[in-house]
């Protein structure tokens, strides 16, 4: 998935966050992953205010009827080499709200999704690891950890 952004694109990833009717549990975990303790900026990852500047669209929450059109519009506004991350079980597959009448059940029913991060909500460490993997830095770090860590990490 990282090849999609290209060699340089992986070193500076600009995120744009969209809350498609989630319970904002994932949103506060995503916002926490930008603060000091998890600090996404060390990978060159920034939160940008406008979809025009963004590379990666992070969507949280099971898409409900009203936010579906906005999600599609925001997706079209992002310039081309773009990656979509579905953050949290609701975004991956509608999670616990499957079956509710106003919920489309997952982001991939509306826009093509590249990376799924299940978890309700996924810990900021999981978000940091996913984005580090996207930035292609995780492999380099693991290589200089004196060989593979105990058994391949299930990722």
């Amino acid at each position, binding site marked *: 998935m990282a090849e999609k952004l290209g060699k340089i694109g992986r070193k500076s990833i600009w995120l744009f966050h969209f*809350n498609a009717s989630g*319970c*904002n549990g*994932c949103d506060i*975990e995503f916002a926490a992953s930008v*603060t000091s*303790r998890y600090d996404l900026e060390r990978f060159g990852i920034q939160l940008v205010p406008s979809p025009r500047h963004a590379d990666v669209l992070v969507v949280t929450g099971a898409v409900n009827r*009203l936010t579906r059109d906005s999600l599609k519009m925001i997706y079209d506004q992002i310039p081309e080499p773009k990656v979509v991350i579905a953050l949290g079980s609701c975004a991956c597959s509608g999670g616990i709200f499957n*079956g509710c009448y*106003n919920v489309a059940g997952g982001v991939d029913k509306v826009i093509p999704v590249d990376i799924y991060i299940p978890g309700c909500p996924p810990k900021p460490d999981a978000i940091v690891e996913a984005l580090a993997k996207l930035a292609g830095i995780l492999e380099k770090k693991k290589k200089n950890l004196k060989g593979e860590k105990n058994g391949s990490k299930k990722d």
Partner: protein
Amino acid sequence: MGARKIEEYLEVEAQDIPSKVSEITSKGYQHLVTITGLDEGENIGLIYHFSKPSGETIHIKTSVKKHGSLPSIVDVIRGAYIYEMEVHDMFGIIFDNNQWMKYKLLLPDCYPLDEPPPLWKEADPDKIRKKLYEATSAACTLTEPISGTSMFSPESVVVPFGPYHPALKEPEHFRLVVEGERIVQAIPRIGFVHRGIEKAAERRSFLRDIFLLERICGICSMHHSWTFVEAVEKLLGLEIDKRAVYIRTLVAELERIHSHSLWLGLVGYWMGFETMFMWVWSIRENIMDLLELIAGNRVHKSIVTIGGVRRDVSDEKLGRIKEKVASFEKRFTEVMDDILTLDEFIARTSGIGKYNLDTARKLCVVGPPRRAVGDGYDIRKIEPYGAYEEVDYSVITDMGGDVYSLVKVRMLEILESTRIIQQIIEKMPSGNPVPKRAFMGTVPKGEAYARTEAPRGELFYYVSADNKHNPSRVKVRTPTLANITLAAEALKGQTLSDVPLVITMIDPCFSCMDRVLVIDRSSKSSRVLDERYFRRIRRKGGIR
């Protein structure tokens, strides 16, 4: 106790509801908690829940033909229009002289008309969802006809609507009736996060409902599950182990600190002061570690279950909690003292979104916004539940009534919560809080309500069951739904540029997803501006 079985009702005819309500309010029941709708076969039952500021509650029941109508009580209690809009959306009941009836509150506008309203028993969610998602998107978006938009003047340009969220903001929609620049009236339009939880709750068993209802809001999730479980335990008549009650109170107070410090960090973020956001959130991290230590998940604790708590907290953990909370409090007061006495911070927040005590009372506002005007309305004191009787703490009130006093109230409440936690840890009794088997049975016939003090205010649950595995009706009234009317009210008289700080004043949680449609009476054109657009500070007018 914060929860009680509802034994008796005040049966009233639909037509003389307003007179009955005004008689009740004169007797001291000024606070309308909410209006609950029930599908009773051929007609719809409506329960008006009232409560005195000192805690007694009274419930007026009436029933209306399906698709029937009844007079509105807006002129008696101004804050009731939001509950009437919700019942209108969910049950299709028309309230006569409530002029916001033609606006939808929760449902998308392309809700299929041939389908019954969602909360009727015969409404089938899958059919509704299929129809909803076939409707063309044009019908669903609320763009009123725009006439005479000139190209470049910002006032009359239609913004590509769409709730946009840098970092954490949620979409919000108020219909503002504007005279030139002054806002005359604001009507909230929620619905961006409406997932139809109350309908889903009726089809799942009680145990599964705890996890569903907990995910209504990610920041005050423990209060949701606790209130629901309190109501169900009242129906079952269960006696809870003392230690379980103490552990529940401990986790609830930790969650209050986590929610308030999250909001305080965000106030800094709104003012473009990102260092404060980073500091306050990194201090808040050790509270999140404690929550994870106790419950295994930082946000959705799901530690409450019917009959007690799912995990016991060992004494060694209690010790760690005690000194971590103490270090949090020291660090937090140190940072916040500097920020609160910063003249730039004061200039930026005081005097914004002013409101006074009687508007707060008339609008039945709850939680910190109500306490920031001097009215100590705190469910933990009025109707004590959990371990709040054995703990002594003081209710924080402030006379300011603007964003700065709200910041002070929430900051002092954090300090109060740390004191509560110290006392709880000292008085923690021993015992076996974990029930042997998860509750799988049926709940005997009956109705119960429960009220707790969520970080944002009074959270109300109404649960009715008739000895089946799943509840027949779960009504949730979140604190932000009550406070949204205050935000709408406080917007009056403000200029367009003060809207952002006023909306964030009540610390809107999930349930107030709104966006602003402005009907400009003078130029007859209306423009759809979403909340992000409202953050612009200046229009062409000179600097004041």
